[in-house]
């Protein structure tokens, strides 16, 4: 089902959704960038070309999230913590981020089901926004995605000449879009195909994901490419698919906080032994997890080519170029 919405229609839709949904969308903070945050009215929504700094992952795997709490009466014992159940819609996330969530499903909605992730997922409807202007960091088409791709989305919006064309993908999406706007006529429907292709072709950075990485574990390549790394957590925290975490006890709660393989402390054992003692092992772990281990376990690369780790790396380490250049 496809519908055409005017800007006014979209605004009205968001305003009406606010009654029964928690609405989240991209918001621009001047001089800081675009952030996904709760939207109270259609005017706040940012539908421009810039990408949000943090991926929508943060609503499913929160930077810190209480997973257990000690009994309120002060007695010992850890208790379950609930997940809010009100319905939520995220509007304006990018196709690559939604694809990232489909990859995270393989970890958290698999053997040993993680209720925090699953319940957040099931209460959320995802309305994507197709990209108009991919930048140099984007390489989604090399990772099996596309700026117009609907994988993992319930509906996707294409901005077109002052209006929005919405393609409804799932029933959850239909529930949100309903009968807003007009139906797209048949002639227009055909034009969508070429629009999608145009968007697909607008991604200029192309790489060939590496094969057979297990044959170059000890290669010096990894020390070379990781030398400039400053061991911060930008690449992992801003990645739509990185999901490593730490469990810490604080304030009578057990929290799940982001953690990442780039930090020396990630694998440091209490005895002082660190199985990944240098940047070489740590950076290699990140590349291998994305392009080797995950592929072995689930048949896909754990990278959607969103470009965040390239865009925000403080020293311009480029995982696309590094993966592309990793040849035995």
């Amino acid at each position, binding site marked *: 089902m496809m519908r055409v919405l005017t800007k006014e229609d979209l605004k009205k839709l968001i305003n009406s959704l606010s009654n029964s949904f928690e609405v989240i969308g991209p918001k621009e903070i001047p001089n800081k960038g675009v952030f996904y945050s709760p939207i109270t009215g259609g005017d706040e929504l940012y539908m421009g070309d810039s990408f949000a700094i943090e991926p929508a992952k943060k609503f499913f795997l929160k930077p810190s999230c209480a997973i257990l709490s000690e009994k309120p009466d002060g007695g010992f014992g850890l208790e*379950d913590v609930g997940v809010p159940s009100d319905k939520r819609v995220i509007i304006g996330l990018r196709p690559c981020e939604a694809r990232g969530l489909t990859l995270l499903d393989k*970890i958290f909605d698999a*053997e040993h089901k993680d*209720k925090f992730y699953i319940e957040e997922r099931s209460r959320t409807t995802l309305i994507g926004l197709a990209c108009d202007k991919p930048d140099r960091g984007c390489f989604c088409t090399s990772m099996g995605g596309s700026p117009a791709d609907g994988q993992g989305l319930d509906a996707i919006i294409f901005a077109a000449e002052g209006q929005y064309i919405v393609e409804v993908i799932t029933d959850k999406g239909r529930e949100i879009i309903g009968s807003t706007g007009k139906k797209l006529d048949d002639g227009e429907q055909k034009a969508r195909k070429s629009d999608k292709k145009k968007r697909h072709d607008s991604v200029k950075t192309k790489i060939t994901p590496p094969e057979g990485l297990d044959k170059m574990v000890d290669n010096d390549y990894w020390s070379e490419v990781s030398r400039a790394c400053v061991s911060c957590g930008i690449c992992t925290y801003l990645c739509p698919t990185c999901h*490593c*975490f730490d469990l810490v006890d604080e304030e009578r709660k*057990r929290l799940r906080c982001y953690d990442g393989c780039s930090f020396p402390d990630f694998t*440091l054992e209490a005895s002082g*032994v660190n199985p990944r003692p240098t940047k070489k092992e740590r950076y290699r772990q990140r590349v291998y997890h994305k392009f080797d*281990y995950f592929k072995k376990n689930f048949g896909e690369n754990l990278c959607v080519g969103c470009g965040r780790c390239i865009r925000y790396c403080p020293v311009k380490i480029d995982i696309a170029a590094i993966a592309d250049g990793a040849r035995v």
Partner: protein
Amino acid sequence: MDNIYLPHPARIIEVKQETPDIKTFKLKFDDEAIGRSFDYKPGQFVEASVSGEGEATFCVSNSPTRKGSIECSVKKMGKVTQGLHELDVGDPVGLRGPYGNGFPVEEMKGKNLVFIAGGIGLAPLRSLINYCLDKRADYKTITIINGARSSKDLVYKDEYKVWEKAKDTHLHLTVDYQEENWTCMVGMVPKILEEVKPTCENSIAIICGPPIMIKFTMPVLMKLGFCGPAIITTLEMKMKCGVGKCGRCNIGSRYICKDGPVFNYAQLEELGYGF
């Protein structure tokens, strides 16, 4: 939906000081039904929570053939282990598990077993040794080489007599340097292994100890004729979730917590890692 991170309440029912910095805790679930249904294999581990401190991974060191409680031997090291050491009989803890694959006890049937342990590395092997002794008919000759820095660092001292007396079982104790009144062997584990010379014929070696010990023991095992699949180890790495999600215990494409901690040498080589 169940919370996979939720531990079951349990209590400490006995504490034994093994060495100056290692204690063995006997733990029991508050809910007896959970205790009864807690089924595990030697080599599996649990996640134990200490109030306000956090959670850490410990292998179960008693044999499933001797049910009734869960024993964990804990070396005082980090935040959680220090918190545990401060606890006493009757104090509450949280337990979840068992996790991991455990030792391949079925495949080991009808074989000679060579146990090689260093320091607290004996903990997971103790579970397996007692399991095999309780099912003595299933296994052939059992050789145990157990080393520690000094005699006061040896763990499970009470059980040595039982092991020595068991049928067709040989226990070799060693310390790094000669001490007053020490009558057993002296020297590092690899050297003792070379002296003991267990046969590789129809044998499986199970090794657990500090990385440095494993590094120097491997060539000796190879020289004795043990091949990849016949050398089994249980790996240790920092673990948090225990269920293959938090991402820190990767070894190649496998997670130690979910796919391990027990691997044989052939598997590890395939993953691109030695021990």
